[in-house]
């Protein structure tokens, strides 16, 4: 029974990772078309990325928007997390609902809603509009990981600092912040990954000159699906994702996802 369940779990893991393995493997092929398993091994297509000015531009925009959105999301989520864990009021559930729902609503609905209102606000086809949309969908992920850190944090430590004469802000900066810094970092990383990988929101808020990497890949899938250079970029994205997840898992107890679900 044990053996069967282990084999089944491994097969399931292979299923979950299959497309990612196919991308990573296919990007190493020496042929002019993508094939998995690859025929021969080369990093040629990864070097080729740097010759494609469009892809570099899209990658740059995605990175810039991702970093900015994740930073803003963390800055917005931290005070909310503190308010939700330190103060007990009925209004907390309203605040929680407002900040968390962007992760639950259909992203096409959100993309359209953002487009329709950001346009008359003058943010329609601007990097700022794109950034605003990304901040909205990234903040829930930052908040949920910050809440993990804050609820695991032992409040008596801060009380001790306060009773020893530290001001509230000093006690927070010197005691609480260092203790939750890893959940802040993980929250930032998750927010970054959500923004970096987001397709639908960007589809609505992008223009022909303002194209993020997922949008560029998605558009390219219609014209030249099995292009090895495209595969190399996608594989690069998958590798970044894996690194972020492994690093996050190293510092944050992912088991807490079970407590929340």
């Amino acid at each position, binding site marked *: 029974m044990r053996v069967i369940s282990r084999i089944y779990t491994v097969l399931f893991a292979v299923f979950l990772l299959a497309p990612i393995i196919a991308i990573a493997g296919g990007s190493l092929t020496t042929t002019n078309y993508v094939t998995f398993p690859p025929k021969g091994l080369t990093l040629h297509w990864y070097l080729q990325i740097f010759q494609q000015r469009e892809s570099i531009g899209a990658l740059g925009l995605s990175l810039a928007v991702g970093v900015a959105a994740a930073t803003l999301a963390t800055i917005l989520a931290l005070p909310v997390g503190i308010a939700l864990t330190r103060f007990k009021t009925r209004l907390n559930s309203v605040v929680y609902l407002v*900040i968390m729902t962007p992760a639950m609503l259909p992203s096409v609905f959100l993309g359209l*809603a953002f487009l329709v209102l950001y346009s008359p606000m003058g943010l329609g086809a601007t990097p700022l509009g794109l950034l605003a949309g990304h901040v909205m969908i990234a903040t829930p992920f930052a908040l949920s990981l910050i809440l993990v850190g804050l609820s695991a944090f032992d409040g008596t430590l801060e009380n001790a600092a306060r009773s020893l004469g530290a001001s509230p802000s000093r006690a927070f900066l010197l005691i609480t912040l260092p203790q939750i810094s890893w959940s802040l970092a993980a929250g930032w990383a998750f927010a970054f990954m959500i923004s970096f990988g987001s397709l639908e929101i960007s589809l609505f808020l992008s223009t022909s000159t303002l194209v993020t990497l997922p949008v560029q890949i998605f558009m390219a899938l219609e014209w030249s699906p*099995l292009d090895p250079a495209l595969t190399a970029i*996608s594989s690069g994205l998958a590798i970044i994702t*894996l690194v972020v997840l492994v690093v996050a898992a190293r510092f944050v107890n992912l088991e807490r996802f079970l407590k929340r679900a």
Partner: protein
Amino acid sequence: MIQAGSARARLQWLLLIAVPLLVFGVFYCAPIVNLLRLSFAIADSPTGGSYLPRFDLYTKLLGDEYFLEIVWRTVRLSVLTTLACAIFCYPVSLVVAQSRGWAQTCLFIVLLMPLMTSVTVTTYGWLILLGQAGFINAVLIGVGILDRPQRLLQNETAIVVGLMQVLSVFMVLSVAAALQSVDPNHVRAARSLGASPWSAFWRIVFPQSLPGLRTGSLLVFSLSMSAYATPGVLGGPRLKFVSFLIYQQAMQLLDWPRAASMAVLLLIVTTGMLGLASAYGQLKAWRQQRAQSAGLAMTATSQAGAA
């Protein structure tokens, strides 16, 4: 924990949430309210000049056979995806709930990988695997199941498989969370009273995992209802989903009010179900609480057993 009784505490709380709420009010809540308003606008003004509360757009949509066909496909394939996830993920949830240490961490990374990887990357991966000259065709021919390459893309199975891969994590984690809260002593008690492992599972563990199965199913269903890239790429142009139609209306035909009314219908179907389920859960919890506080703990336990 500070009780928000004192005015000082209330002020601190307000100061903390003021800026985030303001930002979300302007960039999140306002667009949603505006879209709801636009969905009632009359179609002849492309950006919605007039906002009389009329239901023209909705009645027109609900009489549109093309639209209904796409809605039906979206609902049908979402139900199939949910069922497939429930069946195939349940055993994995059992393993996740029992795993510890680095094995559990590895499982979590594998589960979160499809969620965190951009959906364009994973659908692209399926294109490579399922193509005519792809790996799956080669394997099926090699094993002798097929004698020549078949078209594995642009059909409904491809959509369901692709959605399952992306959304499994929600089912596994929801069910595993419920399974973790099952007291192992209950299973031990049942076993010592002579229950077979099989019957201990069905009569003790499985009923207690049902809330998790419900949460997971709702999440998977609503997320596949609103899926965009997976059905778009794996299903091809013939097998459209509602999300694709909304994008097409808004960005190619520039009919924002019509797109808005479709988007609102999509929102009602997906989020409405989640809301109803959470309301039902709260109602049940409230009734249990009341029963318990009235000293009727026995009734509550038997209710929970029956549910």
